[in-house]
């Protein structure tokens, strides 16, 4: 088989896509997990059922995930919802289609990369057929790579995969423009190539940002290509100044501005308040995390790959745990190797550098959670590029072709097999949860999820399964650093069983809330308990929940969502709207651009005749009312404010 011919290439690509689709097929049957709930299932904003401009605008700005709101990703979720409702299957199918598209884009991008390099270095550096082979293998391997399963079957991670569509397309456009610049016969040709390359970077980053912030790394990836392969050259100048200026404007200037905005945030204690680690601990831990990522990418096995890695111990110092320093040394050595090999084996250097570059946002100073596999969606390209160019080289004829070919084949098969096994795990939520909990007995999230799904399966009916659920939840609750979600679930079981032993659990929960940083999961637990009590499914004493809230609020720098949850609690269970208004004012003050809090605050103000303040809140909502997304809520609030109501009892 000759890989050079177009038909063969197309056949191989089609085969790779087909196999990928087949491998993923069992996973399409699965359910929603973890962050899918706040972002999709419980996010009313994206539940578009009637197609109006206001509904779509509201959906676009509905993401609770970040400041930039990720409107494009949210819109695609809303489109999914519009056509298929809550069914996770179509959501996952669209994710799979995006992944396949990314595979094609990756192939095209790598072809342009190797072509540009060939033009720059001349034919002797790399053989056309070998380049083809390498691009095909990397793309196929990447499509099948088990660590990338997260971006496909974990619905909300479409944010990541969709963002990478624009990163890969932008990189492809950039490299195409660079090829034109390198081949240009006159200044005009160079200029048109330059404009094409610039547009690739700018548009790729800009549109990608509408899905996820990872897109800001596109200029970094392109810059690393210049540093290793292309040397900033164009056809007539070995170092084209324009390219330098381009990076000044699309990379260095934005990076400087971004850092000057980011650093004060990162260095302030308040931003680390929701985490149980400090900046230093995070940096130390991430060294070990990156080594794990490398292992999970190159030597994937189903027992270590997981949705949750929250059992990963923190690095408190260079020797606690002892693997910290070796991990740092290993990473330093890898970086050293890439610099050292930059001239002789630039492709290997580029692969390593891409891996590191892709971790710049998530594995450094920003106080995100520590470990997530989906963070390797682009990074794994770098790893595979290095691995396959080491394995197969860039010459047409290689030594021991059969051995190397077989090795590559085994690698691909292994990837396909592991991914298939994972996809089967993912085919059923309960099966996934039990598998994860049993493989990761120290992961509070995995154990909690298993307990939660067992509760749902039994619907609180006394049974061995419910007992098992309690076991999982207790194990989850006892893990150091675990959130209060397990206690919340145990309280719900206790209240359904009318058993008296829930006081101990309450105390456990209150202690945790007082002594540990309040996480989003803790707030979710408090909200769930409030709602359970409001719906009278739960019968616990309201004062216990109030003590829990007060424990969380006693910590410094409570975030807006906690205040808002407390406000709802005060209104719904304490029937104290004066307290609710005070708490919601705190929420609005801390998250002034969140309309939901203002809507609720304005509602309470309106129905208690505090019309002047209500009008101010309504005006603030109007200022946020892009494309009329808040129109109907504003109209309702105006009616309520005009109607007024009895003044607050003090």
């Amino acid at each position, binding site marked *: 088989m000759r890989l050079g011919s177009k038909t063969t290439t197309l056949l191989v690509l089609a085969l790779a896509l087909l196999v990928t689709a087949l491998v993923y097929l069992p996973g399409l049957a699965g359910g929603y997990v973890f962050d899918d709930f706040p972002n999709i299932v419980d996010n009313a904003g994206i539940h578009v059922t009637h197609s109006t401009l206001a509904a779509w605008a509201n959906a676009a700005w509905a993401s609770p995930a970040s400041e930039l709101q990720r409107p494009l990703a949210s819109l695609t979720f809303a489109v999914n919802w519009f056509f298929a409702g809550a069914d996770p299957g179509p959501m996952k199918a669209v994710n799979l289609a995006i992944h396949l598209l990314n595979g094609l884009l990756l192939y095209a991008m790598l072809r342009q990369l190797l072509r540009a390099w060939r033009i720059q270095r001349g034919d002797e550096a790399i053989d056309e057929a070998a380049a083809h082979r390498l691009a095909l293998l990397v793309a196929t391997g990447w499509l099948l790579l088990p660590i990338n399963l997260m971006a496909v079957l974990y619905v909300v991670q479409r944010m990541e995969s969709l963002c990478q569509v624009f990163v890969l397309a932008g990189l492809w456009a950039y490299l195409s423009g660079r090829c034109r610049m390198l081949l240009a016969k006159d200044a*005009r*040709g160079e*200029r*048109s190539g330059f*404009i*094409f390359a610039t*547009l690739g970077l700018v548009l790729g980053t800009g549109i990608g940002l509408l899905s996820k912030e990872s897109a800001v790394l596109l200029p970094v990836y392109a810059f690393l290509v210049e540093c290793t392969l292309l040397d900033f050259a164009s056809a007539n100048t070995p170092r084209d100044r324009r390219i330098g200026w381009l990076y000044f404007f699309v990379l260095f200037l934005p990076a400087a501005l971004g850092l000057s905005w980011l650093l004060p945030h990162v260095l302030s204690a308040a931003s680390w308040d929701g985490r149980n680690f400090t900046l230093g601990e995070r940096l130390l831990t991430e060294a070990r995390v990156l080594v794990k990522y490398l292992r999970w990418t190159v030597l994937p096995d189903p027992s270590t790959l997981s949705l949750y890695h929250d059992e990963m111990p923190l690095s408190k110092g260079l020797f606690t745990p002892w693997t910290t320093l070796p991990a740092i040394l290993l990473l330093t050595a890898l970086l050293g190797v890439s610099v050292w090999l930059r001239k002789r084996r630039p492709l290997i250097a580029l692969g390593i550098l891409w891996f590191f570059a892709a971790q710049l946002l998530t594995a450094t100073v920003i106080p995100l959670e520590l470990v997530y596999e989906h963070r390797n969606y682009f990074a794994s390209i770098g790893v595979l590029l290095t691995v396959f160019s080491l394995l197969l080289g860039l010459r047409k004829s290689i030594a021991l072709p059969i051995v190397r070919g077989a090795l590559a084949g085994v690698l691909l098969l292994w990837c396909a097999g592991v991914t298939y096994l994972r996809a089967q795990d993912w085919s059923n939520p309960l099966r996934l949860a039990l598998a994860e909990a049993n493989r990761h007995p120290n992961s509070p999230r995995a154990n909690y999820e298993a307990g939660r799904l067992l509760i749902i399966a039994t619907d609180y009916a006394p049974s061995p399964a419910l007992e098992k659920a309690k076991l999982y939840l207790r194990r989850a609750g006892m893990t150091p650093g675990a959130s209060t979600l397990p206690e919340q679930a145990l309280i719900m079981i206790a209240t359904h069983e009318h058993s008296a032993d829930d006081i101990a659990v309450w105390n456990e929960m209150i202690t945790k809330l007082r002594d540990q940083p309040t996480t989003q999961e803790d707030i979710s637990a408090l909200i769930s308990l409030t709602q359970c009590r409001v719906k009278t499914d739960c019968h616990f004493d309201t004062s216990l929940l109030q003590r829990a809230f007060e424990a969380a609020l006693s910590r410094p720098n409570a975030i807006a969502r906690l205040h808002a949850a407390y406000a709802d609690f005060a209104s719904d269970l304490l029937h104290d709207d004066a307290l609710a208004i005070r708490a919601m004012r705190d929420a609005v003050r801390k998250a002034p651009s969140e309309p939901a809090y203002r809507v609720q605050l304005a509602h309470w103000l309106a129905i208690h005749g505090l*019309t*002047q303040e*209500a*009008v*101010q809140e309504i*005006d*603030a909502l*109007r*200022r946020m*009312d892009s*494309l009329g997304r808040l129109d109907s809520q504003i109209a309702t609030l*105006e009616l309520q*404010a*005009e109607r*007024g109501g009895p003044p607050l009892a003090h």
Partner: protein
Amino acid sequence: MIAHAAALIMLLIVAWLVYHPGLSGDFLFDDFGNLPAIGATGPIDHWATFWRYITSGTADPTGRPLTLLSFLIDSRDWPAGPRTFKITNVLLHLLNGALLCGVLLKLGRALRLSPLQARIASLFGAGAWLLHPLLVSTTLYIVQREAMLPATFTLLGIFGWIASRDALTRGDVARGLSGMVLAAWGCTLLAMLSKANGALLPLLLLLIEWIVPASDQPVSTAATQRLRKRAIAVLLILPSVLLALWMLWAIPADVRGAAQIRDWTVGQRLLTEPRVLVDYLRLLFVPHAHSSGLFNDAFPVSVDWLHPVTTLPSSVLVLALIGVAFALRGKYPAIALALLFYFAAQLLESTWIPLELYYEHRNYLPAMLLFWPIGIGLGAPGALRWLRSLAATGVLCFLAVLTFQRTSLWGDGYRQAHIWAAINPDSARAQTSAAQYDLAHNRPRLAAARLRNALPAHPHDLQIAVNLIGAECRLNALRPATLTAARRALGTTKVGGALGFDWFNSSIAMAKQRTCPGLDFSAVQSLLDAAHDNPNWRALPGRQQDLAHLQGMLDLADGDPGQTLQYFNRALAFEPRPDTALEQAAILGAAGYPRLGLAHLDYWRTLPPPQEPATGMPCIHSWILREQHYWQHESERLRATLHADAAAQSARVTALKDS
């Protein structure tokens, strides 16, 4: 060429569609001050009322008769609906866009661009202007037809001037010179009859003549060159110098005027305007769907070079842009012309004449050439032309979408008023306007809350206090504190005379009908007393006349017609104008005191006739009234009615006695 025309027609169609949602909007703000003149002396269905109406303007020395004339297209009587007015405005905007496209094409040819480049540039330049969201507040604000018509005549003037100078170059002296006179002086005259801004046309033509000189091809003799120079000197330089002298001569009056009617001085205005211009440019080059709209009374005044801090940088930026334009005029004449045209066209409204500080409609004419240089760049021959054409189309589409969003807002008065109030929380006008919409939609509680929110920041602003009284009356809950606030505002405000007059009239009626608990005769009297003590109004005879008249009205409602006659007499003595005398006499007659009405008219005869306006359109207006014996007829008719009423009264009294 056909493609060019087709593209222009497409642009016009798109512009019409984009503006269509705005046609359902309401009258706004100054519309109410200007348009009722249409029916002021009866429906305009014969020449007598026509001449009275067309000379009735008081803005500018010219009274803007052409603008008034154009309103007759839409209605010959008042009240009328806003829709036809808005349709005419939009059609005029489309006409201006088409004219602009022609002018830009001519300018492009004068710059010797390639035909294709000139066409692309003219289409983009005109299209971006036509579809720009900032101009919505001119186009859909009916009264701003007075800003659009001068633009029409200015464009005609530029077009005619360039055509004429080309004719002169070709040796066609008669056509060339007559065309130049028509373009420079004729169009300037027409533009000035629409709004005084039109006086800038000769200066703008001079800029074009300087930066984009006529080509000496195909033939140009020394004689024609000499002729052209003389024409420029007489037709352009002379009126520009006259305008400059007039502006300089008016400075002392401007300084006095600002002190009387504004909260800032002329010096502060000069410091503030660079910031205003920079903000205009921001809105022009970073277009927004929602800007602050008509309510810019909260735009902060610069008190010195550093407060606000943007004052000095803005001044430097404006000067730098002008400097750059001068420096680039040889190499990039289009950029130089666009910038200098922009600033020159702002000369009247953005320098020392004490007009209000900020209005978006002031950009209508100045912004016309701003986007043309970009069009020239996008249409230039060279690499990736298809991509640049695509970008040009994309920009136009983007502008169209923003404008559509804005016109949709302008088509919904309630939403518009409330969004403006939300965007301009510190603007008393915006808050009042939103509150008035609340009241019109039967939401007095919302109106009252909004006005109470605004009151502390604007203690001297009359509109907030009196509208708050209105809202609280609707809630049957007028608070003493609100009356106190209204007294404070009436005692200290500088502006708001007309508003106060109308409001007092309706309050007196409310007090008489007892529709608002708390607003009785003594409350209204206390408010009138506060207004009487206002030091800012004491020097203005017109205001004093209003206050005496209102006192008379109050006494009439309170059942003391004798007192009313005395106050009416006193009011009339301040400015013994016939309309005032007749109105007061008619009021007395209608209230059942025809003899007092006749006595008032007799008193009027003893007063010296009011001073006739010496200059401008008001002078012509009063001449027309004299020629038509208008007041004579009116007063005779009123006398006859009053006599008849008095006779009827006597007959009734006799009959009563007899029975």
